[in-house]
């Protein structure tokens, strides 16, 4: 059996009487890029700190490369960590920052120089080696922070919201760079963020967390296309998914907007019985104009608000007794008050049980 890079078994973590992580299990494959995604307070940073060894767990085990590291010091675990605030040592030069871990480990001087030079080359910060962190821009600081993990030849990189302090443009640039770095180094990386774009673009697999539990662990495409419950469906995608109430009856979904035959819907095992349910429709999956031919259900609605966003246009209308979002191509010509035909097809929707909110 192939050894997992990071393996977390039945992990509990309590702060006093507050349960932050509850019986959490996670296996990360060698060289995989895992993103822990969730809103604040869901325990994602706490989980990362546990893996790093910065927090003592209340129960359970953590394995890295097959070694039980549950009781080991952070520096003995073969991990490197990049923080949101960069956490560079202000009184040391870039070179001093990069080499600090190696110096603590008692590595020979020549070896340190070689490793620092290599990391600086990979991250293109050779020119900055003699500078102090205060003389660097935000992007440069974060590169140095990544370099600090890089020089130590760690098995696992941990990122704790590394791009949150950067402006939008720089964030995009550095995101691409982290992806390139992962392709080049092929290390295991665990990345915490609350930004779904970062999660979708970077991850091999995303773990969506809520209240100390992993709700779904799957590829970005799977999470987007087949969210396991209503919470995940609502969390992923921008603008958010539309939800309408109704019921599944005799192979069709009946709701205030009409009746949608479910011939093409891919039910989860044992979930195709009749019941009350939510239908989830992504704004970008609403059919209009020439694509209407594929629709299983077509209705006519009035455009209430039109929000042009350049590449796309977001249309708000009244449908099924509530406000409904539709994402149109930016070229689509429509103005407020126009009537528009929209359609739905059952292979691009999600159905969730009314009470348990689990995917059907």
């Amino acid at each position, binding site marked *: 059996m192939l050894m997992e890079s990071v393996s977390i078994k039945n992990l509990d973590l309590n702060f006093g009487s507050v349960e932050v992580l509850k019986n959490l299990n996670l296996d990360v494959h060698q060289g995989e890029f895992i993103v822990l995604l969730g809103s604040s307070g869901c325990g994602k940073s706490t989980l990362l*700190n546990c893996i*790093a*060894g*910065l927090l003592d767990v209340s129960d359970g085990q953590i394995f890295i490369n097959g070694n039980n590291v549950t009781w080991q*010091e*952070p*520096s003995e675990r073969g*991990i*490197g*960590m990049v*923080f*949101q*605030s960069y*956490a*560079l*040592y*202000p*009184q040391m030069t870039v070179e001093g920052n990069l080499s*600090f*871990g190696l110096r*603590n*480990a008692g590595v020979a001087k020549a070896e340190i120089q070689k490793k620092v030079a290599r990391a600086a080359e990979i991250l293109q910060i050779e020119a900055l080696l003699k500078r102090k962190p205060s003389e660097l821009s935000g992007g440069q600081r974060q590169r140095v*922070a990544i370099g*600090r993990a890089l020089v*130590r030849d760690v098995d696992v990189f941990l990122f*704790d919201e590394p791009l949150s302090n950067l402006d939008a443009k720089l964030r995009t640039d550095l995101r691409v760079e982290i992806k390139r770095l992962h392709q080049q180094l092929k290390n295991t990386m665990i990345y915490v963020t609350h930004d779904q774009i970062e999660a979708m673009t970077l991850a091999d697999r995303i773990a969506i967390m809520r209240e100390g539990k992993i709700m779904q662990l799957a590829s970005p495409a799977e999470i987007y296309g087949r969210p396991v419950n209503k919470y995940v469906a609502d969390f992923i995608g921008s603008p958010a998914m539309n939800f309408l109430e109704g019921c599944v009856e005799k192979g069709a979904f009946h709701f205030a907007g009409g009746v949608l035959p479910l011939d093409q819907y891919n039910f989860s095992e044992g979930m195709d019985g009749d019941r009350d349910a939510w239908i989830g429709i992504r704004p970008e999956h609403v059919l209009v104009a020439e694509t209407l031919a594929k629709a299983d259900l077509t209705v006519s609605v009035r455009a209430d608000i039109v929000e042009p966003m350049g590449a796309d246009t977001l249309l708000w209308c009244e449908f099924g007794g509530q406000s409904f979002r539709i994402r149109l191509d930016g070229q689509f010509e429509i103005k407020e008050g126009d009537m528009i035909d929209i359609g739905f097809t059952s292979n691009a929707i999600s159905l969730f049980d009314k009470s348990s909110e689990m995917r059907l």
Partner: protein
Amino acid sequence: MQNDMIGPRGPKPRSIFRLSNLVVYGTITILALYYLAPLYVMVVTSLKSMSEVRIGNVFALPVNLTFDPWFKAWSSACTGLKCEGLMGGFLNSVIITVPSVIVSIAIASVNGYALANWPYRGANIFFTILIFGAFVPYQLMLYPIVIILRELGVFGDLAGLVIVHSIFGMPILTLIFRNYFSSLPAELFKAARIDGAGFWGIFFKVMLPMSLPILVVAIILQVTGIWNDFLFGIVYTRPESYPMTVQLNNIVNSTYGEKEYNVNMAATIITGLVPLTIYFISGKLFVRGIAAGAVKG
């Protein structure tokens, strides 16, 4: 469009003699004079001969400038039976202050660092007890400490006084160091742990180099506090090792013949010079350190 070119443009002109300016600077000036007046009287009196002092015009500048009172205060003023001035006391005070400051800051900074970054079992209780110590009146502890010092065999020695000062500096120093280290980003500490630095490695290589502002605060607090101490100095030492403050008191309170106000003033200024110098040298750092510790604490 001509209208655009006339009328107000740019910053609004403001008079420097505005009412708000007058009130602010007026108040500041009055307060400054109020606080400077005693110092002024001391300086001019110390530069007068006794015949001039006797005239009683305390605000008048000296007619015949003389530095004799200063020399007398330093080397020949009488404290009780001996007439050797403040010189010996100055030396004693230096011998007491320097090690006390170093020892207390060394211990308190490690205390504060451990409390802020390595929360051990019972840390909060320890901290609460320590802070409680800051509010217990010193007088309560005078006699128990006499017994402790006697049992340790250092009663009356300067070493005993150094121990006492180091202990009494602990609560407040630990508090300010703890608050300062707590205000430093926690991620910095985490990063150092991942980089393999231990308790002392993080303290010396990461924390201490960032602690200059708070070290200055601690040094000023301790130097002025210990230098100005009178109570411990008189209780826990013998006459030959009296600190400067005690000797100053003896000079000023010696009522043998005429009171030499000019010598008393000179002696007082000399005694106060050390704390004053420290303030002047490090005033800016002091303010910065106080702000760093207090605001983010």
